[in-house]
């Protein structure tokens, strides 16, 4: 008997997809704008509750939850496998989407086509949760496409603007190239490992025998390993991680991001910057650390694969450092507030990539904590910038001069987000950057901390430019009737600002109870991930 909570966790992405597809049909019957808004918020609230249940459950039961679709066990059927790592990221996705759905009511109140907006928004959430929860590399491809297609649509939401159409097309072309590369990687994975199930791949990179196939009906435990598998593994790893680096916007695959983020509506920019790029980060981490055991290369059955994994980690650090520096320099030169923030995303993804490349426990803790902190702070920064744009009607920093004094709540939340991203204490960004410094020093690579210091100082210049402009500079045009927007916009801002402070002040507790266990599940307990899938297979066979 499957625990009912397993059904809830496993069905979270399909339920969200169903909610997305139902909206256009229902809006044919109920032709009311208010209905679409309430529906959108309710659907994201349901998803947030389900992700919270998943998070609570995986931290409570202390082992990954495996859900089999149609009761087909792994590796035959598609499974969703939620451990502490993806359970945590799922919760962040659920909460941020809910806040964005609420914020969108006011932000897009003068726009038509709101039912399509919420359809795409809920669809994107379903895709992201699918990418996070899936335990199947092919299903990851499918859910990645669901996420991407909805994202292209949302970037082009202002379909009367040329820049939105251009940005969406550019994003779609770049994204399609990336998913095609990932598809080639999948073919190589299947050709090399004869499976698409993540747990089975993780097992086969550790063992010379295939225990999954033995359980299904093999007459004896055959040795399936050949040394040449390592070559396939190397090619697959290179192609898959390259595709994910496009989704994560790591240099040189960051081209789409500075165009797409400003062109989209601000709540969508918050999702793209705070969450969507993290999908790429998640996939990189899952492939490197769960499937190819980068934190414990000694468990790899193949010594050739060890070289490959080590080289990949070095590449990740180099590309991460280049992302941070290049984005830092380009960030200062911007006069469009959203474009400036978009470059900051590339910089922070660079930090996360560097943390992932260290392959130490502290480095991974720093990377995962920074992933969460950046998601919260960047969503806040985009939503606060969106509030300025919503009220004043411009993205130009010069034209926003002086509005800060008239919008104190928005400005305060903007400053909290900016200080958090720059890495000032006591905000959350400080803690994860501090951990990253310590991780570099622990590894003996202290000079690399200079890259974070230099790029952070560029970020400080850029943010001070905005804060000085909106708060201290005299207005360049008459600002009549300008005030903080309605609570529908300011309440999500205040919640995220509180989260920035809370994640900073409560960091010792969060690190101990949440981040470290998620790092252990991701990278240091591969047998746990594999054995849960094996347990399901044994149960399905009546064992």
């Amino acid at each position, binding site marked *: 008997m499957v625990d009912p909570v397993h059904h809830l966790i496993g069905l979270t992405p399909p339920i969200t997809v169903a909610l997305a597809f139902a909206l256009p049909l229902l809006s044919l019957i109920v032709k009311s704008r208010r209905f679409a808004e309430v529906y959108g918020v309710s659907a994201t609230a349901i998803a947030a509750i389900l992700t919270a249940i998943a998070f609570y459950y995986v931290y409570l039961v202390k082992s990954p939850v495996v859900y089999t679709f149609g009761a087909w066990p792994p590796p035959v059927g598609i499974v969703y496998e939620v451990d502490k790592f993806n359970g945590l990221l799922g919760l962040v996705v659920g909460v941020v989407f809910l806040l964005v759905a609420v914020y969108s009511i006011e932000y897009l109140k003068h726009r038509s086509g709101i039912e399509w907006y919420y359809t795409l928004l809920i669809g994107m959430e379903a895709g992201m949760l699918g990418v996070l929860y899936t335990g199947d590399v092919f299903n990851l491809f499918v859910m990645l496409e669901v996420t991407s297609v909805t994202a292209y649509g949302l970037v082009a939401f202002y379909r009367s603007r040329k820049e939105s159409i251009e940005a969406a097309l550019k994003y779609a072309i770049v994204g399609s190239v990336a998913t095609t590369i990932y598809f080639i990687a999948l073919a190589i994975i299947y050709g090399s490992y004869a499976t698409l199930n993540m747990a089975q791949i993780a097992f086969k990179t550790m063992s010379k025998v295939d225990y999954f196939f033995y359980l299904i009906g093999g007459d004896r435990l055959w040795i399936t390993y050949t040394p040449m598998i390592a070559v396939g593994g190397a*090619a697959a790893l290179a192609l898959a991680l390259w595709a994910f680096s496009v989704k994560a916007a790591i240099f040189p695959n960051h081209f789409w991001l500075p165009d797409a983020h400003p062109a989209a509506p601000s709540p969508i920019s918050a999702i793209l910057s705070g969450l969507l790029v993290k999908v790429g980060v998640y996939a990189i981490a899952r492939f490197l650390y769960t499937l190819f055991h980068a934190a414990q290369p000694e468990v790899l059955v193949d010594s050739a694969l060890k070289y490959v994994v080590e080289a990949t980690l070095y590449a990740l650090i180099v590309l991460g450092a280049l992302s941070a520096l290049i984005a830092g320099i380009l960030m200062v030169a911007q006069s469009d507030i959203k474009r400036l923030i978009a470059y900051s995303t590339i910089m922070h993804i660079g930090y996360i990539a560097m943390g992932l490349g260290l392959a130490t426990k502290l480095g991974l803790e720093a990377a995962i904590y920074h992933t969460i902190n950046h998601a919260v702070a960047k969503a806040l920064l985009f939503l606060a910038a969106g509030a300025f744009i919503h009220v004043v009607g411009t993205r130009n920093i010069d034209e926003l001069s002086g509005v800060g004094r008239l919008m104190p709540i928005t400005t305060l939340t903007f400053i909290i987000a900016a200080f958090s991203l720059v890495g000032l204490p006591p905000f959350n960004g400080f803690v994860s950057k501090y951990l990253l410094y310590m991780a570099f020093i622990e590894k003996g690579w202290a000079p690399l901390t200079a890259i974070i210091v230099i790029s952070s100082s560029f970020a400080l210049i850029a943010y001070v430019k905005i804060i000085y402009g909106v708060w201290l500079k005299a207005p360049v045009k008459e600002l009549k009737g300008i005030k903080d927007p309605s609570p529908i916009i300011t309440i999500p801002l205040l919640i995220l600002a509180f989260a920035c402070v809370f994640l900073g002040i409560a960091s010792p507790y969060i690190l101990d109870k949440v981040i470290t266990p998620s790092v252990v599940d991701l990278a240091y307990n591969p047998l746990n991930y594999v054995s849960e899938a094996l347990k399901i297979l044994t149960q399905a066979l009546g064992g």
Partner: protein
Amino acid sequence: MNVLIVMIKLTVIMILVALSLYSTYIYVRKHRGIIKAKYKFQPYGCGEELTREQVSVGSRGLYWSVVSKVFNKLYMILREKIHTGVLGDWFSLMIIFLVVIVIVLIALSLIGVFG
């Protein structure tokens, strides 16, 4: 060292530094002994009428001059060669990197297998 202790120490130091700088600024402003004349605050543009936007430093100029002087060459390389925003440029750059990475990783795996 405990993260919380580090954070508290740094926060206190930052607040103290900010407070001391701000109180110095207030003190200097109070005691500078200059009598302000209103006309000094009117922008003078050789008889031309100037808007506030024209007399204030634009966001492009603010703080950017340091960066543009020190890193100008690098910025121009980035803008003209690496980050043009043209898809064809991205594609060629991406393919070069991808081919290098795939070749290096496959070569390493072959060295591992046969070496």
